């Protein structure tokens, strides 16, 4: 109980260097903690659900399991575009697995240096999702909490009002 509390409050509290999965969205590179990433899979056919917002692509069949997929470009206000290197990062969330479509998966790397310049986060990402800013290839890179983007509160906004 106490263990997990600590972790959720201070993700980088342990001595082990934390790993992040870096991915590209449009011309930006972001990282997300590797811990809860379940898998990265190629894009498959999604079935839209009635009365849901455009950035929710619908459900995809992953080995017999129906997983909801979010278009991260649309979610953050970028125009939708399906490039050749597009992949889906699948997370475990409180409400079951959830995937998000990104333009390219770049690498898995340690979060090397922590930067205090939170101000340098990319403005397209609401600050609530920003975990920290690190330095990668000598450039400040934002580590975002994708699970939070996919959390149930956020997804409640997925539905449009039917009536």
């Amino acid at each position, binding site marked *: 109980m106490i263990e997990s509390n600590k972790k959720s409050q201070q993700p980088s509290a342990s001595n082990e260097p934390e790993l992040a999965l870096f991915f590209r969205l449009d011309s930006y590179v972001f990282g997300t903690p590797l811990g809860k990433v379940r898998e990265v899979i190629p894009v498959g056919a999604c079935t839209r659900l*009635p009365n849901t917002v455009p950035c929710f692509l619908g459900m995809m*069949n992953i080995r017999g399991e129906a997983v909801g997929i979010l278009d991260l470009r649309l979610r953050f206000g970028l125009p939708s575009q399906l490039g050749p290197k597009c992949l889906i990062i699948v997370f475990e969330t409180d409400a079951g697995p959830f995937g998000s479509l990104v333009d390219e998966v770049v690498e898995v790397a340690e979060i090397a240096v922590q930067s205090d310049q939170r101000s340098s986060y990319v403005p397209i990402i609401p600050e609530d999702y920003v975990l920290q800013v690190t330095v990668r290839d000598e450039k400040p890179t934002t580590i975002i909490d994708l699970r939070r983007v996919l959390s149930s509160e956020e997804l409640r906004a997925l539905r449009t009002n039917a009536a």
Partner: protein
Amino acid sequence: MEQILQIFIEEAQDTLLQWESICLNMLKGQPSQSDLNALFRAAHNLKGSSRSVGLEDFGSFLHEVEDFISWLKATPTEAGAVAIRLLLDCQTLISEWTAQLDDGRNYQTNTHDIRDGIRRLMESSASPLINTRMQIKENAATAAFGFFDDDSGTMASAAVSPERNRELAPSMQSNKIIKDSSIRVSLNKIDSIIHIVNDLSVQLSMSLHELKNERNEKNLSALIGASNHLVYELQNRIVGMKMQSIGGLFQKLERSARETSDAEHKQISILCEGVETEIERQTLEKITDPCVHIIRNAVDHGIEPPGEREAAGKSAVGTIRLSARSEGEYVEIEIADDGRGLDFGRILKKGQDLGLLSMQSNPSHRELAELILQPGFSTASKVSQISGRGVGMDVVKTTIDSMSGELNINTNQQHGTSFVLRIPANLNVVSSLIVQCSNQLYAVPIRDIMEVVDLEKISIDESGHQKVAILNDEPVPIVGLETLLGNSEAHAPSVSNRMALVVGSFPKAALSVLTILDEARLVVNPLDGKLHRLEGVQGIAILPSGCICSVLDIKFLAMLHHSRSQSLQLITQRERV
């Protein structure tokens, strides 16, 4: 220890059900010695097992109840309605007590009133049998119940004051036993399932062998066909294990009805039909409260006081009929009374007062009956303890809707009212039609479809702005399914739709689709947390092709169309005014 407690709780629940049914039986006629013997055994068994799990207060209370029953056996003249009510009260108290144990909470109960009632009854009759065994401990009256302290593994505090109880509450919460309900399954049923699984594994290994070696297509398809059949059988049997007969629910309803009629000084008799009808366990749990509410209403509002009934030429004793039957994939439950029926005049007035009806409108009896399901609607002139606060019927309606069920009300002035619930017997495996509409596939449960019509072969009235099909001389609005689904790609009017699915009884609608592709038995997964209760979608299913499709709740969609067009009508009416 926890496990033993769990077993104790399960056994206690069974015994208490029996207890209740014996008491209800005794209320119908003169209690026989064999009834009392059975009750005594029940109390005795409970007492014994409660002491074996260290529930001393529970045991000593039952000990007194046991004394009371033996006293009744010795003085049968006293075993009348008063005594039986006391025994039913005991049953309620012990049930609550057990339920609280089940939740893993410390429970403080007040046995004082019942002990007092028992004592008064025994003292009032000059019986020589008030013996020394009967010790009423006044100080034990507020005694709380022992609970198991997980950390120390010992019994903690037998008597806890309310303050202390509150203090303890948070710590109990973290220690709370995670509740998992269980069912008892006969060994024969399990054996039959093992048998099928064995057959299935043989079939599968034969298929694999065939695939590796011979690769004869005909053999393979025969093998896969056989496995498919076995899986179907397995599915049926496992789902069957979760089915329960509806008898338990009826017993509970009978009890509620009797309590209500006692409080209201009315006389009722209760008839049950189809008690062996089976329904899925969780479904049964969900409909219990709605049914209790309906039957209380029936006794409170429906059945008249004896004098009024006789004046109307009816028997002084009102009749409530509970019946259940399976109908395809649905179970139909009817709760009918022979009371005064719904008062349409009052409903109309109330509806207009509340602004639910416009003054000019001339609603049908059916629409008026539906009004009582609206939130805040009650025509009861006095608010009684049981009903009349206008909360309840709308909750009943929402619960049944959430289960894709239906609630119909039939009423007849002076002859009574009947509430008919149609509930899917099983929500997981659903025979469905796969339909195409724009460029999407959807599944529609067959149980929700009344009729499938070919739009090219029926007469359609296109004079209004709403297309209307004439089916059996009845006008039914035709609605494009895609327009109801808010499908962003499908705003174009559906000229190409050729087929229509006709939905339910009220409101009726023909939902037009492009084509019907297939029929399949689908395993429906309800949408979980994030999309929980997405309107118009019951769940999702994976089609044999591997595609995912939404399983639609077309009854909801028909309702949605109905309310939209009604509000449209209201607006146009207002504009005209």
